[in-house]
């Protein structure tokens, strides 16, 4: 795959530098932007804070920061898409608010299919079927619009959904989402046919929990108890991997054997299995294995999200050429497509750093941990978890002044971290700077019992 010309990278750099200091920026093409001389802004912005907060699953705060950013820059596409995502994430979701932001974005970018279908998804949740179908009608017919339409009518009009599905699968017979929908649509009326769809869908994505479950139920209903049990066990494994099963979500090192086990049970080595394995191998620092895994992946068939992930994994595994090629490919896509993809992604490279630091800390190897923290912060200067770890290590290493500085830096970019605010307050008190504590507490973006406790303790 050829590397894109410099102009493409320059253009991407211009958009991406706005959130360069975030993990999300780092996720897309930080390495390339470094090479091309992008400079970070001097101070973190509300956009940076909003995206960071999103990444730390502080969705309410994320909405707040992103809204402030949009108040100043209403035409910020990144901010608009990100705030829409934030309204659809976390415990207090509002599909209505998300839809409003997406409508604003779409009024400026009517050709952006990704954003259009995202809005369709929100309207589907809101049961505004008419508006959702109108939005689809306005776009040229494609497998993706057929898919969106079929998903809308799935419950209300399964016959129509089946008809759409036929057209869609003729256009794209290997579309995993289409096959999975076919399983749902035919499971009660034509179980044998549904089972056939399930087999095809699971060959493409053995990690699809719903299809795994439905296939198990179908096998059970058709009397193949052994197959059913095998698939139900796989479903349980997948649930555990996602943290929604009977166990908490495992760490990467715990997940690795589970995924290996899963991969060993699949007859076709699908892209999703390989990617998941590569991700876990990378996260657990098995570079050489990760390299083999990545090189086994057929890049030509990857979706944008998969391409991005391969790029990140490759970058981590020092497969520079592969990484650059993948990033360049992603940069060719409409901005919303790779932004949305990034917003849905975990921050992989940074997690590697964090994992290694925390391992060293667990081993009480504070010097090694500190070196790893510094190395990590060199790459991710605004990594809040890394900064928090550095402060903790500086205290362990007997340097409270440095810890204060690290905590101050941390609270600039992650002001919601109440426990770190309390830590800093205690350090200030210990240093005789109790006058500064009240201001520190007032700067917190939200109320918190921890902070209240501190106020009471020092009668502030």
């Amino acid at each position: 795959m050829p590397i894109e010309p410099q102009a493409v990278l320059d253009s991407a750099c211009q958009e991406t530098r706005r959130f360069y200091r975030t993990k999300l920026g780092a996720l897309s093409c930080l390495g390339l932007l470094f090479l091309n001389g992008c400079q970070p802004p001097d101070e973190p912005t509300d956009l940076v804070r909003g995206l960071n907060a999103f990444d730390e699953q502080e969705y309410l705060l994320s909405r707040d920061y992103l809204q402030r950013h949009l108040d100043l820059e209403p035409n910020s596409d990144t901010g608009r898409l990100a705030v829409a995502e934030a309204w659809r994430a976390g415990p207090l979701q509002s599909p209505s608010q998300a839809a409003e932001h997406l409508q604003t974005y779409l009024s400026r970018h009517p050709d952006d299919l990704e954003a259009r279908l995202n809005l369709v998804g929100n309207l589907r949740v809101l049961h505004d079927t008419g508006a959702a179908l109108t939005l689809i009608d306005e776009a040229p017919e494609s497998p993706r619009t057929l898919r969106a339409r079929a998903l809308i009518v799935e419950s209300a009009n399964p016959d129509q959904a089946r008809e759409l599905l036929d057209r869609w699968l003729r256009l794209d017979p290997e579309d995993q989402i289409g096959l999975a929908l076919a399983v749902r649509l035919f499971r009660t009326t034509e179980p044998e046919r549904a089972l056939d769809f399930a087999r095809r869908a699971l060959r493409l994505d053995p990690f699809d929990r719903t299809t795994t479950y439905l296939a198990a139920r179908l096998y059970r209903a058709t009397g193949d108890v052994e197959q059913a049990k095998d698939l139900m066990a796989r479903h349980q494994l997948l649930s555990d991997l996602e943290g929604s099963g009977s166990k908490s979500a495992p760490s990467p090192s715990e997940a690795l054997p589970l995924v290996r086990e899963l991969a060993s049970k699949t007859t076709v080595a699908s892209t999703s299995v390989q990617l998941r394995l590569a991700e876990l191998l990378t996260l657990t620092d098995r570079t050489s294995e990760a390299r083999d895994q990545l090189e086994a992946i057929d890049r030509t068939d990857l979706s944008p999200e998969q391409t991005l992930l391969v790029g990140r994994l490759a970058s981590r595994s020092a497969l520079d050429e592969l990484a650059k090629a993948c990033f360049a490919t992603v940069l060719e896509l409409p901005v919303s497509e790779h932004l949305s993809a990034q917003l849905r992604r975990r921050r992989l490279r940074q997690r590697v750093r964090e994992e290694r630091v925390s391992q060293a800390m667990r081993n009480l190897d504070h010097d090694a941990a500190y070196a790893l923290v510094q190395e990590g912060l060199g790459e991710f200067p605004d990594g809040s978890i890394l900064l928090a770890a550095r402060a903790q290590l500086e205290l362990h290493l007997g340097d409270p002044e440095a810890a204060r500085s690290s905590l101050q830096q941390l609270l600039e970019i992650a002001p919601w971290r109440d426990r770190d605010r309390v830590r800093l307050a205690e350090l200030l008190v210990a240093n005789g700077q109790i006058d500064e504590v009240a201001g520190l507490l007032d700067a917190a973006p939200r109320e918190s019992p921890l902070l209240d406790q501190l106020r009471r303790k020092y009668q502030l």
Partner: protein
Amino acid sequence: MSDSPPLPKPSAGSANHRSILVALLVLFTPTSTTAQDWFVRVTDPVGLTFLHQDGRTGEKHYVETAASGVAWIDFDQDDDLDLYLVNGSPAPGIELTPTPRNALFENRGGKFVDVASPLGVDDAAFGMGVCAGDANGDGWIDLFVTNYGPDRLYLNQGGRSFLEVAGPAGVAGSGWSSSCAFGDLDGDGDHDLYVTRYVDFDYADPAPCGDPSAKTRYYCRPENFDGVPDALYLNQGNGTFIEAGKERGVSTAATERGFGVSLVDFDLDGDLDIYAANDGSQNRLYENDGSARFEDVGLWSGAGLSALGVPEAGMGIAVGDLNGDLLPDLVVTHFSMETNTLYTNLGDLQFEDVTETSGLGPPSLEYVGWGVELFDFDNDGDLDLAVANGHMQEGIEQLEPRLKYPQPNQLFENLGAGRFVEVSPQAGAAWQTHAVSRGLAVGDWNNDGRLDVVISNTNDRVDLLENRIETKNHWLGLSLVGPAENRLALGAVVTLQNGTSKQTRGVRSGGSFQSQSDLRVHFGLGQSQESVRVDITWPNGRRQSSPRLAIDRYHTLRYDDLATTKDRAPTKPSDR
């Protein structure tokens, strides 16, 4: 239905047929012939002065989101239903005057009088739920009250007072308990106890969840807290219990946050199985081997997850045979944006999520469902459904305008074979008001043969919805007195044949959400005027048939002689 021919039953899978049935239902509803509401709120006239309070201050302590339950019990064995109401409690350091306490309203011929204080059941802890059983085997209904904090076991002293013995009995527990249910799980005749436990919440270290812009707080989500394992207490037969969950195969993980529970013989093999609903993770179906050793078959059964294999926010549970195959089906209430789910029992501990074709899906999407019961409100011979709704997030309207904190409760009519249509609009103003409801229990408080509904509301008065539906349908009510070791007959199953159709009802402790319905069983008979026989499978496995029973009245059937020892005519409205 009143003044109308019985509705024809739809054949499975016929959408057009169903549309016709819905049209028929609308055409023949009593509202088309009478202005009388089917249900009337009678809370004030009957003297139910109870006010639920949790003393909330805006700190949004998570414990405030799920309280509290209700119970219909005849604690004094005078053949009418009394009402136990569980109350909340303010956070530590906050005083409310008067102190919120649980109430026991004695039914005195149509008026309720709170006797909780003199009888010793006016607990002031943060109450969650309640269930009825007979912990000491003396034949009197005892109460187990779940709390945030130690639970209470109130032993009934012959209907004259209660004695709290949770500590010495070994069932006090700690932390946040939710629903409970008694039943003979190990086959020794006495009543064991299952208690679901929710999350590890601590006033001293609450997870802060809030809106930074407004500097206000919201209630956290369950995921912010670790779950706490449910408790399985085995009755030792000497007034004490031993917690044996882990040893007996009932072991829930930290990701599981328990809410509803129901003890039912789902596979008709003669022992009680356990169905436990979890908030946000897979529900458990513990198959009993007959000696209280359990194996979780929730995932394998199809009743652990939604039709698409994903966990939902399980709250309350209702159990009943919805399609006439005599197998107990399941309805589980869920959070908004999720449907309430109907699992039909296929036999052999296999269930199918049939929500999509049941008519229960779309009407429940905007509501957070809690209490739920299956009962035949119009005595037409099939089980209808009532659901108590109310969002858990105060201020949800500001975030998502489509959702409301107070929500209307819902009544669904069974069109036959487990297909439902919502009839709340026809059922009267009582089903139109918005409240933050939680507990729900069903019982015939005035013995007129029409099942009434009581619903608890957070920080609000309770709603007693008296059933005044006018129909030509008939009914039969039964009080069962079981064998010596299980006088309450928990776990007994009664089958009635009426013409060509069969109905089955069970005597069950707990269920719904943190609530207890009437332990008597009730059958709607449609317009049949024939006397009926019933077959009873007692909890010890013995089967007996009754003599022919006159309809439109309550009978007491005793295990020892299976003689009809009481035969009471229903109370007429004019008698009240």
